[in-house]
């Protein structure tokens, strides 16, 4: 009996055993040590001559916590779908006070483009995705990569916006907030830094010609869904392509299990509905790998 149980468990876990090649702790800005590294997941098999589409993943954690490891499972899953996936570290508060964290994300994107041939990436087909604080950073570099305040001064230099953006569970604005986490990230209050609060707010930077967005948000998220809806409306009003996935019953870190009888402690973007929408969106905007 025991060996049968062991075999069943091994079979269940075995689905995760074979996977893409992982290049761990690749530095994209040597000035900041581990805070400016990324893990790159490369799909099995030969790459097309033009390179593969890629997704850069930006972790959450209130700009203060978390690491690239938070996105290990998502990166592996994307690589299994044929995308090169890069999950990045960036400087956290206090070292990462705005605009440093944004500059790091753009430096990482610039690194991937400059070294696209090394990792079999098509530099024109790199999307950016993030959750919570990472959702804010991804949303911001989608519409404000070319603002001078966001230009990284790293070896790889400034770069343009990603080819597609998937922000999850974020508010898309820093304005009118008394949240201490936002004040810490901004390095001061809105009253003291009104211009910085505007440049750090994705919704304030929306313009025609932004890359396609897939905005994902849980209906019961503590970060209110109205902020995501406002961003979707602003992007649409400016003539941009945007899709909106609202997940009924999903919170910031609590999501209903698939048979709905339990609640799983995980991000809304881990729900199967979010994955189906994400892969479809990437295929349509970047092209199938």
């Amino acid at each position, binding site marked *: 009996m025991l060996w049968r149980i062991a075999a069943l468990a091994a079979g269940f876990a075995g689905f995760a055993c074979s996977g893409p090649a992982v290049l761990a702790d690749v530095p994209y800005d040597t000035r900041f040590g581990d805070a400016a590294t990324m893990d790159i997941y490369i799909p099995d098999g030969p790459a097309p001559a033009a390179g593969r589409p890629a997704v850069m993943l930006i972790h959450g954690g209130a700009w203060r916590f978390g690491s690239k490891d938070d996105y290990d499972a998502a990166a592996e899953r994307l690589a299994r779908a044929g995308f090169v996936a890069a999950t990045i570290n960036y400087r956290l508060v206090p070292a990462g006070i705005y605009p440093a964290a944004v500059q790091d994300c753009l430096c990482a994107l610039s690194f991937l483009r400059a070294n696209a041939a090394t990792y079999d990436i098509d530099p024109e087909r790199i999307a950016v995705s993030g959750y919570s604080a990472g959702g804010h950073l991804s949303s911001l570099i989608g519409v404000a990569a070319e603002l001078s305040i966001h230009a990284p001064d790293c070896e790889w230099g400034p770069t343009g916006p990603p080819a597609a953006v998937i922000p999850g569970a974020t508010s898309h604005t820093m304005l009118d907030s008394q949240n201490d986490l936002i004040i810490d990230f901004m390095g001061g209050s809105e009253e003291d830094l009104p211009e910085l609060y505007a440049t750090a707010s994705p919704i304030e930077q929306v313009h025609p010609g932004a890359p396609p967005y897939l905005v994902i948000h849980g209906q019961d998220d503590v970060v209110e869904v109205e902020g995501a809806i406002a961003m979707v409306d602003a992007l649409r009003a400016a003539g941009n392509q945007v899709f909106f996935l609202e997940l009924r019953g999903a919170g910031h870190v609590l999501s209903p*299990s698939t048979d709905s009888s339990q609640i799983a402690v995980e991000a809304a973007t881990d729900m*199967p509905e979010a994955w189906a929408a994400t892969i479809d969106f990437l295929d349509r905007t970047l092209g199938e790998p």
Partner: protein
Amino acid sequence: MTRSARRAVARVFLAMSLALSASPALGDEPEARVAQPANEQPRTAVSISVAALSSSAFAAEVERDLGRRKLSAALGIGLRSAAMGDYGSITIGGSAELRRWLRTPMRGWFAALRLEVARTSMEQETEDRSIGALLTTSLALSAGYRFVPYRGLQLTPSIGAAVIRESGLDGRSPASTRGAPVLGLTVGWMF
């Protein structure tokens, strides 16, 4: 959820309830069924998930005391439609759970092993097209406590850890296995 889907779920649940309630408990001796004491412990429980109700979904289970080794078995079904905005989805799931009660069958502390299988199909509604379906299999080990505050009324919170595997049935969503803590809360009636 459409009216026909609700009816289908209700029919399946009713059939499961009748089947489990009508069947003799595994391991029962014939004599035991003939001579039942008047104050016999409840041996069947019907529950709905509070978590599901909070997310506009529906999940229900029927549980039967197996009559040996303080074991009970539960079968459940669930239905949800989580995707909104530019998308729509329907998820249909079923679960089987084996519970080992610490002292008294069907009440108090228990440990459980739960297997859940669900199918989620997803549409992009703005373009009226399917974007794939996924099969989710979850194996969870959990512990919980059943309160029986009044007659047969029972409230059962639980906490555990699940290994969740998802795979694409159609569309391009790749397979994935991950772990996650899980919480549960059901309310129902025992008889």
